[in-house]
């Protein structure tokens, strides 16, 4: 930096007045103070543009009132085993399913290595709350809402959910088993605030 700032003797007269008066400059190779000024001004302008652009860009991100609605509490007491409820969270459906022991058994019997998106059933529930499966009700293929929340729905070949749009089958742990979807149904951030309540988000 120091030798950039210093005016090298090869760049002509030290007097800046003479420099600007258009006296011939035979050599342009060595960095001169003008180069430093241009770089500094360019960097300053680039940072300034970013600083000015950011409020415009960030104003299009979720606002505080949207973020304030970003968590949803669910009371689990009315959901009997084998039943499920759908709650709205961030404008999307969340499936809360009270699984029967058979469904849990079925999900745990599958060798993990056979799965397209390998995950154990244990990894998809909270410890000690094996009967509660909470997944985002959005098919990972193209965003449709899979069927299977009502016992009368088609639940697909693996007893979980079935997406009617392009035929993806999910099992009782919400894992993809057949069809075009690439990954398992996503698990939202949630926690048990008590034994009978969860907070999604």
């Amino acid at each position: 930096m120091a030798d950039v700032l210093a005016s090298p003797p090869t760049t002509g007269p030290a007097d800046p007045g003479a420099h600007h008066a258009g006296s011939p400059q035979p050599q342009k190779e060595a960095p001169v103070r003008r180069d430093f000024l241009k770089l500094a001004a360019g960097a300053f302008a680039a940072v300034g543009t970013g600083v000015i652009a950011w409020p415009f860009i960030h104003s299009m991100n979720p606002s505080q009132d949207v973020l304030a609605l970003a968590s949803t509490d669910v009371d689990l007491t009315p959901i009997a085993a084998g039943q499920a409820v759908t709650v709205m969270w961030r404008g999307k459906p969340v499936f809360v399913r009270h699984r029967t022991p058979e469904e849990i058994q079925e999900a745990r019997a599958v060798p993990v290595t056979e799965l397209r998106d390998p995950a154990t059933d244990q990894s998809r529930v909270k410890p000690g709350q094996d009967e509660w499966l909470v997944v985002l009700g959005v098919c990972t293929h193209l965003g449709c809402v899979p069927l299977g929340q009502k016992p009368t729905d088609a639940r697909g070949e693996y007893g979980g959910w079935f997406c009617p749009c392009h035929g993806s089958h999910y099992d009782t742990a919400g894992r993809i088993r057949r069809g075009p979807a690439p990954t398992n149904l996503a698990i939202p951030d949630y926690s048990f605030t008590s034994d009978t309540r969860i907070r999604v988000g």
Partner: protein
Amino acid sequence: MAAGHHDSDEVSDASTGVHHLHDSKVKNPVLRWIDQRMPVISMIQLEYGSFPTPRNFNYFWNFGALAMITLAIMIATGVVLSMQYAANTMLAFDSVERIMRDVNYGWLLRYAHANGASMFFIVVYIHIWRGLYYGSYKTPRELLWMLGVVLFILMMATAFMGYVLPWGQMSFWGATVITNLFSALPLVGQHIVTWLWGGFSVDNPTLNRFFSLHYLLPFVIVGVTFLHVVALHITGSNNPLGIEPKTKKDTVPFHPYYTMKDSVGIVVYLIVFAVLVFFMPNYLGHPDNYIPANPLVTPAHIVPEWYFLPFYAILRAVPDKLGGVAMMGGALVVLFFLPWLDSSPVRSMRFRPIAKWLFLLWTVNFFVLTWVGGKPAEPPYIQIAQICTAYYFAYFLVILPLLAKFERPLPLPESIAAAVLPRRGGGPLPAGATAKPMEKA
């Protein structure tokens, strides 16, 4: 060749040795390829690079560039604000409060937009004042001036409709008062007002159309600004001496001389703008506009935004309804005729010893009109407004047409260079010390 224009392509052109491509001087091959087919780069170089500009601009010549910058700021902030705004009487006020409280940087964007309107008028008023003082409206720049008046009126319409959008008390009652101006027209007045409102009072249809037009008009302003600049680049800029450049010595290339001078002005301007936005964002607004619109209660003291006050004062100065509206409109319309009303061939007030003082008096008069416009409509303010209104019009309709017959202008300099450059061998500076660097231009 002209007949076969559309059939010929580059290959046949090459074989005949004739081609339509623009003779581009651009070095970069990609830019050159574009420039040969669409010479925008050449145009920018010609109009903003080498464009010969009088060498003697003072800082009043910054305000056109400042107006352009402000227009850009207004459109940029306005576009993102409109993404959060709801043009419905049930939602509008709350959506603006949501912008202030919940939207990321919404407070900044709205304050920049609201104060940007004030800054825009400050800049444009100074820009117009510059034109009046230095005679920039005179031949051959009449059309340039008239396009400027069109821009000013478009700005006023845009600002008025923008102020209605937050749907506060001042929004609602401002809209009611201003639209009711049209009811002064004989016979058709009330029908026009009903048509403007889309109903029988200022209501949801009014708000919707004002939002639509408030989004549309800025782009009309962009279009007319383009024409304004086209006209400017045909006649060239006026300058503080009001005499035309005669030789190359009278001009400098626009870049880097005026790109730099404009940049200095823009930095200073943005500092002032930032002080207003960050430290006194509501100084120029009315507290009543933070009360949601109520069609049943008019605020006790209703005034328009500060930039409309001079014209509002003229409106109230006339005791007759139609007369007041006509005078207010006339105060703007008279500007269109100014190039033909001023009979003096001398442009710059520097060389008009009497007109200069009468114009400065007109300037003071304009400030007084602004002041009385914000006062209640009662004595003595009404009388002051009447005197000021009389002088406003007398300056344009009596003084400027007649003054040239009596006034003896000061001798004009023989050229810009002769007036602003020290003479060789004389002057306070050693010969060539300031002139020499300019000679390469």
